[in-house]
């Protein structure tokens, strides 16, 4: 900023002042302004065959196309292909790998690769690229934990062989999430030029505004009908405004907006495995533990009493919680994996049963002796804090509704809205509105195994049950998915114990969120599988089957 007025004559000072500022503004504007183009075609111009979609489904620019930055983690990604994929019935099927086989000791995984796969720049996807991607992510270790992988080798016949240090059946999930990057073009600037081998390629990313994808001409799978996808990075209310102004074909809507009417669009609701519940510390107070590498206090004297947790599991009325927190746009949840192939249906209970809950409390020694509405045991009141992320409307509504219902059972819950940072610091000493749910069972292990205690944010309740640990380990080391699923089910409930609500209930799962979208009436989104966590990308798993019907 160079404003030098000394050379100006008196009368022209004001004029130059104005001019200086205008020039200064003009320069500011020009730096972003592109040359005037002859292209007058507007993006919204109706075409006879609709092959472009404008989508406003959330702020989905985290990770910026680089798996090392978390791109693809827990999410479907349209840009990259991976060794395996999940089909509509939640089977693990080949993608870049034609198939896969696991050795009898479950340690050697072999993937013959397809020969016709190419990156968006036309270069073939080779076994070397796969090896490079996995080794790079293993070395980094922040986003994808591949510490159990011993070696990745390229074998004859375009085949990848991965040796594990210990058996791990849930490795399949990472095989579906890790997008392969080209060895020759990968460096720290990969985000700016993400060459990839998925059905779409990134053609433009306007920081904080939009991502434009075009179909990848070298994609080996079914050609999608829509050649171009524009993702507007808008917040929910701005997205709804965009829908009302006719600027978007699909927008994500939170449950509070579900009754909004937009001309030409209708509401699509899809069941998901995106679950919410209450995490309850299972050990008494006084100990120390770790969260994300930081030493924290752990334990809560009230929630560590099994009767409290079991009473909440059967006493809370999930349907009422759904109606309150989600306006009914959701499903009840009893485990982290309802309706998944590894779900144990015996964990479903007739909930909202206040009588049964009071009986469990009474048998456990929790009685309201002084008639203040709160049960006591040995002078200790059945009262505890419950943290929720204050920026999360659903978790805040859910926490308040849970606290309200708990008073009927004689349990007082004090809800406190804080940031995630604070939750990680204090979360092991109080209840927390928790979330989870994936297309794979690994979270059953990471949230409930005592081996995952004090690791990252895994096993927050510091839960430990030798029998459950045994089942989880057997599930993890199983050599087939069928065998693994059998042990996942036993870990939830084996008739006597388990980590589900009818067992030890370290986390009481309450509801699953339906993913809601307003979509153009003419758009056929095909048969959607049960959605995984994250409403942003969950919709796009079957994009090659989408059609526009005039």
């Amino acid at each position, binding site marked *: 900023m160079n404003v030098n007025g*000394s050379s100006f004559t008196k009368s022209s000072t004001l004029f130059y002042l104005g001019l200086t500022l205008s020039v200064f503004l003009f320069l500011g504007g020009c730096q972003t*302004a592109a040359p005037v183009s002859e292209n007058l075609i507007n993006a919204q111009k109706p075409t006879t065959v609709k092959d472009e979609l404008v989508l406003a489904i959330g702020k989905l620019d985290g990770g910026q196309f680089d798996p090392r930055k978390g791109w693809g983690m827990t999410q479907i990604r349209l840009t990259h292909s991976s060794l395996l994929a999940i089909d509509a019935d939640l089977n693990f099927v080949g993608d870049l790998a034609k198939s896969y086989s696991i050795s009898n000791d479950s340690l050697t995984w072999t993937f013959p690769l397809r020969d016709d796969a190419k990156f968006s720049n036309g270069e073939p996807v080779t076994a070397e690229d796969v090896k490079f991607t996995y080794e790079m992510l293993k070395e980094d270790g922040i986003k994808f934990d591949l510490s159990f992988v011993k070696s990745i080798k390229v074998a004859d016949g375009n085949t990848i062989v991965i040796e594990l240090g210990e058996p791990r059946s849930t490795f399949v999930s990472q095989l579906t999430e890790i997008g392969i990057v080209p060895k020759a073009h990968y460096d720290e600037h990969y985000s700016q030029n993400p060459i990839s081998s998925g059905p779409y390629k990134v053609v433009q990313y306007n920081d904080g*505004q939009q991502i434009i994808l075009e179909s990848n001409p070298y994609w080996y799978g079914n050609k999608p009908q829509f050649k171009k996808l524009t993702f507007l990075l808008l917040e929910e209310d701005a997205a709804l405004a965009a829908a009302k102004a006719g600027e978007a074909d699909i927008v994500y809507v939170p449950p509070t907006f579900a009754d909004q009417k937009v001309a030409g669009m209708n509401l699509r609701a899809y069941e998901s495995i995106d679950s919410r519940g209450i995490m309850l510390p299972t050990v008494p107070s006084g100990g120390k533990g770790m969260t994300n590498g930081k030493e924290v206090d752990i334990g809560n004297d009230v929630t560590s009493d099994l009767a409290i947790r079991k009473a909440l599991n059967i006493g809370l009325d999930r349907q009422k919680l759904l109606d309150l927190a989600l306006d009914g746009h959701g499903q009840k949840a009893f485990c982290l994996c309802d309706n998944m192939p590894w779900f144990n249906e015996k964990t479903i209970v007739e909930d909202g049963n206040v009588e049964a809950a009071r009986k469990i409390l009474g048998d456990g020694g929790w009685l309201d002796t002084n008639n203040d509405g709160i049960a006591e045991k040995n002078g200790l009141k059945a009262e505890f804090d419950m943290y929720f992320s204050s920026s999360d409307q659903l978790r805040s509504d859910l926490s308040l509704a849970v606290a309200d219902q708990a008073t009927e059972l004689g349990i007082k819950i004090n809800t406190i809205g804080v940031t995630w940072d604070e939750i990680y610091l204090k979360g092991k000493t109080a209840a927390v509105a928790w979330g989870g749910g994936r297309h794979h069972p690994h979270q059953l292990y990471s949230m409930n195994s005592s081996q995952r205690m004090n690791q990252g944010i895994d096993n927050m309740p510091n839960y430990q049950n030798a029998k459950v640990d045994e089942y989880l380990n057997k599930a993890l080391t199983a050599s087939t998915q069928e065998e693994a699923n059998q042990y996942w089910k036993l870990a939830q409930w084996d008739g006597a114990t388990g980590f589900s609500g009818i067992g030890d209930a370290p986390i009481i799962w309450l509801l699953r969120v339906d993913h809601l979208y307003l979509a153009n009436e003419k758009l056929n989104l095909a048969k959607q599988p049960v959605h995984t966590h994250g409403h942003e990308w969950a919709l796009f798993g079957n994009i090659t089957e989408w059609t526009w019907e005039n």
Partner: protein
Amino acid sequence: MAKNTVIRMIRVVTLLIGLSILTFSLIHLSPMDPVNAYIGGDGSASPEQIEKFKEYWGVDKSPVEQYFSWAGALLQGNFGTSMLYRTPVIDIIQSRFVTSLALMGTAWLLSGVIGYLLGMAAAMNRGKIIDRIIKWYSYTLVSTPIFWMGLILLIVFAVGLEWFPVGLAVPPGVMESDVRFLDRLHHFVLPALTLSILGVANVAMHTREKMIDILNAEYVVFAKARGESDWQIFKYHGIRNSILPAISLQFAYFGELFGGSMLAEQVFAYPGLGSTLTTAGLKGDLPLMVGIILISSLFVFAGNFIADILNKVVDPRMKGAI
């Protein structure tokens, strides 16, 4: 003047040092954890990886050591790397600052010029219908929250009339090379309008008060007695006496403008510095946050500094001092 400038420069340096120390201490006292920001809620990092990460980013050191290594890097022009976007902080600030600057610049200019003219018009016609309309308009707008104003404009002009787009700075789905200047302007109008409308009211009311003082002064009474017309009074006495406080006010308004742009950008999903700062703050991206705070304080300082210089340039009585 030279001496003044040197003192000013020393002041800004100490201001920045103080501000960075304050920001650092506040962040250190807050429960924000850079590890959480980097790993995110879904990470599966093992304790060994977290240790490695802490060592790499230097967050295992004491806050004082961290401050000095950060400040040392800053002296070499390195603002650090954003944990959220994983790109150099300075790149993010550059790209966002240009959009913000155009937005704030336009709003600043419009609110200054229109506000000054309205204030003048009101004062010259004190008590008449035009004065009352301007006063009513200003009082209403001054008490209007900026994001609410933005939402009203959005509902009326973007959703209702569909004259303007609902958000963003470029049209959706159009390649960078095909975006015309007009497109950018089209997206620019509503946020800029929101930001300037409120500034107008402030400036108008201040100018009106100042002008009324001037009109009550003896030299104006004398001028009237000499038979000068309203226009002559405005031209010879009004402008000259009211422009100095107006300029000071206008440049001091930089700080407020910055706060306003944060809200306006949020409403219109306009990717500027303000909305980036909000995201950085909420998601615990410390390097980005400190970077933006420093840059924006420089910006506000520059505003006040320019006001001082301009006061001297514009005021003939100060001419010799330069």
